């Protein structure tokens, strides 16, 4: 009996024993598995340093359009401080227009420049003198490239990763004080903390305090969901312990500061103090004062509950509590805490160096132009074409005008949206991208992804195709009269002019300037739709448009970026430069990565483009864009085209100066009617953007095979300014015979010369 009992007990013991062993083994396997996972993932993340993204550096030279105040703005943007330049790099002194700058050691695409002392003299709008410390003149000097963000080129997240040296000492101490007082003592899990939290929770009757260490929070951010189950808690604890076993406290703290979730920016999560500092304040972390640091530290507890934009009072109370704790621990003195507690939150105004829409294009162009394997390397530096001044100008103009238009509109429940892209047509460099009116938001990037009918923006391509056919010149008469077409599906298409009027006989230049639909359709049908489609594709449209007659009035859909590509060829004398946001990428040793080269191709003959462009300047002086004339800097010559899609759903403007090409789209996201023509919606945004950029006039060099002639804007007859009030200049092939206005006498250029030229033209070719 006893024996039986004892053998039963032994069996039970064995069973229990083996169960225990199995459990222990399973636990061990589980722990080893978690250990591996933690180590691998942490190391991977820990070492993945994102690519740093830089704007184009500002070049200074005698005559550069940078006034003394502009120069100081640039220096401030680059975080140069006022002081004694002898103190070290990053300091400048200004006396009137004279600057002494201790420039930092900087890596440019072409060279590493050592720090040096430079003296710059600037007038009110331009640089007048640049000298080195030994008083030798310097013909050209550039400022540091501005860091505008960082991207992980492969997985597309952006984050500003801090290294241990980048962490301000106050943040280092305060984050432990607020979130995990015993961080330096525990091994990943803090039993005292758990007890304290449990006690507090029991007393309150619900969860008021968490006992999680920084390590546990880090693990949770890396690997786990937000559910609160015992199993998840256990996993988290084991992982935290393993993490502490493998990595130093310092590594864990820095990883935590880079990983912690601090807010939501549209569809993008803001992780890490580096990015949060840019997102909330547009300042680098090491420049934040105690108040701003306290605000960020306070956000850890609940980024949406304490969101300083949505709940400024909560955020302020939380910030002041953190400041109090800092003062109690003697991290800051009481006076500073008091001063900081009384200060405003100091959130960044819209705009600034925070450019998610541009970074979006940078990411796409990195993928387009570089090998994925090369982009995976750590510590890359991406040099972009971004011009922060143009970006700020475009952002300001768009937000300002959309607010004005919204206020004037009867649609109260919906806000107008818009997009702006600015480029340098010669190089194809994209210098600014605004993806919507919420400039900071990283949501839908309309500049790159909103595909809309372009309306009359297509007309320059139709007129170019007509010039290329050899059957039309700027003075050729067109008939603006009603037309009806039977389409393939049996329906009848009867386009109308926007004004619902008809204009009869009009010269080509006027039909384009006033954007006449009927004259354009008749001419387009005469040269044939395939020719128009060919021209559009040569200019840069990547997909062949459907050959429907309505193509002539712009039913073809394009994104603002695609429009920029097409117009680049018009603004660049017929040369098509492929758009680029990325100029170069250097690896961590300063060596350039191999990229697909900039490609410039011939899209159209210089002569045809010259004639077309001159007609596009008439759009701005006499046609649908003439409202610009009084609002642009006096004397600035510009060329452009308005576009309005059917029922005014889309308002477009594309136009260029001698320096920049800018395309603006305005409309509703849900595609409803805006009531705005291109001239009423997009053009004011374009004007403001261009007016605030320092821009040269659009004055292309006239090809030698062309000559300027005067014709009447209304009747198209050759005339003289003295003879006709409405005389305009058009470019035509040398020796073109134009019908003369009877009352005006002989051609001003002289009939004999014309005959000689005509003879040369017919006999030489």
């Amino acid at each position, binding site marked *: 009996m006893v024996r039986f009992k004892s053998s039963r007990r032994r069996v039970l013991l064995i069973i229990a024993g083996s169960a225990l062993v199995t459990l222990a083994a399973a636990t061990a396997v589980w722990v080893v598995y978690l250990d591996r996972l933690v180590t691998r993932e942490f190391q991977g993340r820990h070492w993945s340093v994102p690519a740093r993204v830089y704007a184009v550096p500002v070049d200074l030279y005698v005559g550069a359009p940078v006034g003394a105040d502009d120069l100081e703005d640039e220096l401030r943007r680059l975080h140069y401080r006022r002081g004694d330049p002898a103190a070290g790099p990053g300091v400048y002194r200004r006396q009137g227009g004279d600057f002494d700058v201790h420039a930092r050691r900087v890596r440019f695409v072409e060279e590493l420049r050592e720090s040096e002392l430079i003296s710059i003299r600037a007038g009110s709008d331009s640089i007048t003198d640049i000298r080195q410390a030994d008083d030798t003149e310097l013909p050209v000097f550039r400022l540091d490239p501005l860091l505008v963000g960082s991207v992980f080129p492969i997985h597309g997240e952006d984050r500003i990763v801090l290294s241990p040296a980048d962490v301000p000492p106050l943040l280092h101490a305060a984050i432990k004080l607020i979130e995990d007082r015993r961080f330096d003592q525990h091994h990943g899990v803090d039993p005292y903390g758990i007890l304290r939290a449990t006690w507090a929770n029991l007393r309150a009757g619900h969860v008021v305090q968490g006992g999680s260490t920084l390590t546990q929070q880090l693990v949770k951010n890396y690997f786990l969901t937000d559910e609160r189950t015992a199993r998840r808690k256990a996993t988290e604890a084991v992982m935290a312990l393993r993490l502490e076993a493998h990595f130093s406290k310092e590594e864990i703290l820095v990883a935590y500061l880079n990983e912690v979730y601090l807010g939501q920016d549209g569809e993008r999560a803001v992780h890490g103090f580096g990015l949060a500092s840019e997102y909330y304040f547009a300042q680098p972390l090491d420049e934040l004062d105690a108040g701003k640091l306290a605000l960020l530290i306070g956000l850890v507890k609940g980024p949406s509950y304490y969101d300083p934009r949505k709940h400024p009072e909560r955020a302020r109370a939380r910030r002041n509590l953190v400041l109090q704790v800092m003062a109690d621990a003697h991290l800051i003195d009481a006076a500073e805490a008091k001063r900081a507690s009384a200060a405003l939150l100091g959130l960044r105004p819209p705009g600034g160096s925070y450019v998610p829409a541009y970074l979006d294009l940078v990411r796409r162009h990195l993928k387009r132009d570089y090998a994925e394997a090369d982009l995976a390397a750590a510590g890359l530096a991406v040099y972009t074409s971004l011009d922060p001044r143009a970006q700020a100008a475009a952002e300001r103009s768009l937000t300002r005008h959309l607010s004005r238009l919204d206020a004037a509109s009867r649609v109260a429940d919906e806000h107008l949206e818009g997009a702006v892209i600015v480029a340098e047509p010669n190089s194809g460099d994209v210098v600014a991208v605004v993806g919507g009116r919420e400039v900071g938001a990283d949501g839908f990037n309309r500049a790159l992804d909103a595909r809309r009918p372009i309306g009359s923006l297509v007309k320059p391509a139709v007129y170019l195709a007509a010039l290329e056919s050899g059957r039309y010149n700027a003075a050729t008469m067109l008939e603006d009269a009603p037309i009806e077409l039977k389409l393939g599906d049996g329906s009848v298409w009867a386009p109308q002019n926007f004004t619902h009027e008809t204009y009869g006989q009009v010269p080509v230049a006027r039909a384009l300037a006033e954007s006449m639909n009927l004259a354009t359709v008749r001419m387009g049908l005469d040269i044939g739709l395939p020719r128009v489609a060919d021209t559009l594709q040569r200019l840069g449209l990547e997909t062949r448009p459907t050959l429907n007659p309505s193509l002539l009035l712009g039913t073809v859909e394009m994104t603002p970026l695609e429009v920029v590509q097409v117009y680049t060829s018009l603004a660049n004398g017929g040369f098509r430069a492929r758009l680029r946001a990325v100029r170069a990428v250097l690896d961590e040793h300063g060596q350039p990565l191999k990229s697909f080269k900039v490609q410039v191709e011939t899209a159209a003959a210089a002569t045809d483009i010259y004639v077309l462009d001159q007609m596009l300047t008439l759009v701005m002086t006499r046609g649908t864009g003439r409202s610009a004339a009084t609002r642009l800097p006096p004397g600035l010559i510009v060329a452009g085209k308005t576009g309005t899609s059917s029922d005014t759903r889309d308002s477009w403007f594309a136009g260029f100066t001698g320096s920049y090409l800018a395309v603006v789209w305005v409309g509703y996201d849900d595609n409803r009617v805006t009531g705005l023509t291109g001239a009423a919606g997009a053009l004011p945004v374009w004007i403001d953007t261009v007016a605030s950029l320092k821009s040269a006039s659009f004055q292309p060099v006239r090809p030698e095979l062309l000559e300027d002639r005067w014709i009447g804007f209304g009747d198209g007859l050759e005339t003289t*300014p003295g003879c006709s009030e409405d005389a305009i200049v058009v470019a035509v092939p040398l020796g073109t015979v134009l019908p003369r206005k009877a009352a005006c006498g002989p051609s001003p250029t002289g009939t004999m010369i014309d005959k000689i030229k005509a003879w040369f033209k017919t006999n030489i070719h």
Partner: protein
Amino acid sequence: MVQDKHSLRTLAVALTTALLVAGCATSRVTSLPPTSSPSAEPVPQASPQPLALPTAPPPPPAVRENRLSPATGSLVTQARAQVARGDLPAASSTLDRALRIEPNNPLLWIELGKLRLVESDAHQAEICARKALALASGDRRSQSQAGRLLADALRAQQRNQEAREVEKQPFMN
């Protein structure tokens, strides 16, 4: 084999560089003027008067001469030094920088085209030459430099007939 190829390429670069620098040494005087003229723009401006203020007849064809400004002149010198060192990517971005300052100066496009030839990209050299030619309208000296570059770029693509046509153009002598 690889090394052979590499040394061949180096030789080619060195030779072309020598040619380029030699070529530049003579043209230097013409393309880098004394810095007394601060004007970066072609002088005088040929104004097509598209504003059409009805006051004067179209201007007569202007005589133009393109020059480099002190800033772009010094960048061109830098780019040539970079080519001489064999650092072609750096030379390319230095010329980009110069073109951002004076995008319409045909001399810079000619310089960029010469670099493209050194990089064995004759097609892009041709485009640069054509761009320079378009900008040089009315400036015989720039036209003939651009024309020579264009002929070289065409020959490098075995388009000898077209190269001869270019050389027959009136601005070539």
